[in-house]
Structures are given as C-alpha cells and as structure tokens.
C-alpha cells in the first residue's frame, strides 16, 4: 500500500503577477511537502512571496506553473479543508462577535445551529464568552484576533494558514497570543503553516522552518527545530530553551546572507 500523501504539497510552483508596467515573478520553482499535523513556519523578507504562497495553498490564487496539492489532490479553488488567518482580524464592524465567528459557516452554507454552538464554545474557551453579542469596536486588539481565530476554526479546517496574524498586536499581546494559538493548534492536531518575518516567532512556534530567498521567492533552506525536552515546549518556554538561540542565530545568518547578496 502506498504511503499516505502529504497534507500539503507544492510541486515546482511558479507565480507571476501581471501588470501593465510588466510582470513580476513572485515565486520560482517552489517545492515543499508538509505532513499531517506538522507546524511549519515560512520566513523570508518582505516581498519574498510568503503571503502569495498562502494564497496559493488556500486556492484563492492559481499558480502560473506547477501544482499545489492537498491530500494528493490538485487545488482548484478555496477548499473547506483550509482555514486562513490574515494579518489583521478584519472583523465586520456591523456584525456582533458571534455573527463574525460564524461568517465562514454562513458562506459555506453549513448548519447554522451547529455553527453557532461551535463558535460559542470556541469563543468561551478563548475567554470571550461574555462578549458574544458585543460589537468588534468594543474589544481590544488581542480579543479581536482571538475572535478571528474562532472564525477560522469554526469551519473545522484540517489545515490552518497563518499570515503574520500577530503583526498588528503590541509585543506582549503578541507573545501571549502566539503561545495560545500554537497550543490550541497542536492540541487539535491541525496542520499549520505560519508565515512571518519574525525569526523568534518561527523558531518558538514551529517544528520546521523554511527560508525563502528574496524575490523571486525560492526555497533557500529547510530546518527541523528540535528541543531536547521530552515534550515540545510551548512557544514561551521554547524561548528560554538553550536550543532557541542556536536556531535563531542560524536562521538570522540565512536571512542576513541575502541582504548582502
């Protein structure tokens, strides 16, 4: 019997953006393979095509060459297997917290009674139980991003794409929330792909870090992040582990190299 296909696979993916002034090569010959339950971080400098990569996996953008596969099947459009967390919460200001959290289920035509129950449970677990009928403007940035997480998980995706979801938060909230999110995603055994330019965030959250080169983005290197502890430490604990600095410095040099080159 053949081995189970990778959860997410990119085969020689190319992407070009077209504009009247010319075309831009955003990604060139990108291949990678991510196993079920893996937490992968993709780092690279601004404009290296990191976010484009997530748009391709989510199916809202089609590659100009190569193929993107989920569970061995080529992506033809947005898939229900995939949940996408964007750089900001983008909560709809005219919807209550609960109504925002069930947006995905509503668009996908799911059973709304079940969706509301699931969203309520998620929001309650994230400490927002008393804010279900509040409006987004009444919540702080960290709370809003938790609502966005509930909105993503409410459709029960297998694969969660995180596009610098903490970038807009202050540094304390950012650390606390990335810790929470990593723990939640591991517990629920989701396959997660985190895009960031923050090396510390990548090393502390992911078990594998892929470095993209500058535009056009290519896979420059692929690093397994292993800690000596028997169990994977939480992101906050990982930052204190001795291995953290080693990985951090190695990745730092990787990124630094092509600032000069």
């Amino acid at each position, binding site marked *: 019997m053949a081995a189970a296909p990778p959860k997410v696979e990119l085969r020689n993916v190319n992407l070009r953006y077209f504009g009247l002034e010319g075309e831009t090569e955003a990604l060139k010959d990108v291949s990678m393979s991510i196993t079920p339950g893996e937490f992968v971080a993709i780092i690279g400098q601004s404009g290296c095509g990191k976010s484009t990569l997530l748009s391709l996996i*989510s199916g*809202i953008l089609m590659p100009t060459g190569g193929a993107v596969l989920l569970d061995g099947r080529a992506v033809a*459009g*947005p*898939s*229900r297997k*995939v*949940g*996408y967390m*964007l*750089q*900001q919460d*983008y909560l*709809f*200001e*005219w919807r209550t917290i609960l109504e925002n959290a069930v*947006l*995905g289920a*509503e*668009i*996908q035509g799911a059973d709304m009674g079940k969706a509301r129950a699931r969203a309520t449970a998620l929001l309650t677990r994230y400490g927002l139980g008393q804010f279900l009928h*509040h*409006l987004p*403007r*009444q*919540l*702080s940035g960290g*709370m809003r991003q938790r609502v966005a997480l509930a909105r993503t998980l409410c*459709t029960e995706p297998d694969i969660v794409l995180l596009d610098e979801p903490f970038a807009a938060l202050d540094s304390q909230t950012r650390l606390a929330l990335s810790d929470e999110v990593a723990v939640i995603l591991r517990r629920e055994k989701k396959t997660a792909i985190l895009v960031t330019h923050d090396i510390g965030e990548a090393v502390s959250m992911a078990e594998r870090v892929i470095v993209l080169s500058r535009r056009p983005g290519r896979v420059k290197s692929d690093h397994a992040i292993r800690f000596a502890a028997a169990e994977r430490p939480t992101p906050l604990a990982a930052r204190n582990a001795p291995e953290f600095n080693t990985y951090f410095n190695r990745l730092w040099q990787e990124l630094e190299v092509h600032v000069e080159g």
Partner: protein
Amino acid sequence: MSKVETLTLASASPQYLAWLARERRGARIVRGTQLAILLAFLVLWEVLPKALIVNPVLTSYPSALWPTFLELLKSTPQQASILVHTWATALATVLGFTGAMVLGTAVAAALWWWNVLYKVLDPYLVVANAMPKTAFVPIFYIWLGATLSIYGMSLAISVFITILMIYSGFQGIDPNKIKLAQTFGATKGQILRKVVLPGSVPTLLAALKVNAGLSLVGVVVGEFQSANLGLGYLIQYGAQIFKMNIVMTGITILAIVSSLMYLGISWLEAVVMRRR
C-alpha cells in the same frame, strides 16, 4: 459594557461633575445661538419692510404669512388647498429620492459586478451628472406629461450623483475583507450581499442626504413649468399675480418640508448606525 469601565454618576469626582456642567453649558450656548440667529432673521424680515427700509411689496413679512396660510388652506374652485399642494410636492420628492436610491444602488452594484461596464460608462456618468438636468424640464413635460414629468425630474436630478457616490463607496470596501470572504469560498453574490452592501451603509446614508435635497429641487423646478399642483406651482402663481405673501408662504413651507426630511434622515441614521 465597553472595555473601559464607566463609573456611575453617584461616585463621580467633583472635577468630573464640573467638566460635565461645562460641556452642557457649551451645548446650551450653541443651541441658544442657533435660535438667536433664526429670531434675528425673522425680526429683521418683519421690521425692515414695516419701516419701509425695504419695499414690503417685494419681501412680504413674517406676520403676514400666517393669515395667508389660513387663507390658502381653503380650497376654492380655482385653487386647491395648500395642504394638497404640499402633499403633491412631498410625495414627488419622496418618490424621487427613493427611486434614485433603489436605481442608484442597483446600477452601482452592476458596475461593481462588471468592471468593464464601469470602464465603458464612466465618462457618460460623469458628464450626465454634470449636466444641468433642469434644462430637460420642458422636454420631460412634452415626453411624460404634467405629473410624470415631475417624478422624472425628481429622479433624474439625483440618480447620477447617487450612482457615483454609492459606486465609490463600494470601491472603498477594504479588499482584505473581500479576501477574507474568498478564503471561505464566497461567491461574487455572497461578497456583494455579506461584505460590500452592509459595509456601504454609511455611504448609502450619505447618498440619501444629498439625494433628498436634490430631489426637492427637481420637483419644485418641475412644478414651475408643468404643474397645476404643488408648492413650486403655487410659488410661480403667486409671483405671476405679484402676491409676495403667497410666494413667501410657499417658500416657508418648503423650508419646513426640508427640515422634516432632515429630521427623518437623522433619525434613520441614528437607528442604523446604533449597531456600529
């Protein structure tokens, strides 16, 4: 409850109470000044013609309006009651701006849906909006007849600006909100219904405000030309027989109609925006 806890008034500090009193005094001063301006205007309007500083035949005066109004209330074989005139004008105005909102939103949605359509029509819309629609009053009268030409003018004068305003509101929706809906697999229709339209409510209200005023202009100008009914007709009639009392009464009622529309729209805005 907001994320900042509000203290109850009972436990408020004296500084806060003093600040509150200052705020309230400020609000009273604004209100008082507004009333004073209105009063000063009415007094000048009354006194200047009475003192013969301006010719009363040309301006009439406020104290003459009420008796004139009472007289105009009666309907005669030659002349309908002023209430009938007011009703005709108000109805045409409401029909005009409601039609402009519905049609404007529909056209804006079509332009949003088919970008090519927008590219093609853009110059025509801009020119149509800049055209003085009142130039068409005589033609509308010939094409549509006495009553329909007024509804037509009321719609024509406000529909183009409505299309342009609402379309630009649609364009102003954060593309990331649309991207978010797309990640859930939203269809174009779902994006329109769940993101673009609800996100454009403030724009729709702004368009309605512009619209209501313009439609009233369209109606009154239409009535000058073509009607035997409506405040525009009454004003025109009063001017022709040189009775400034009738003209000024008509204009005053127009001012009241405008104020009521303003209040109505403010109320609608308060109701709709409470959720934001």
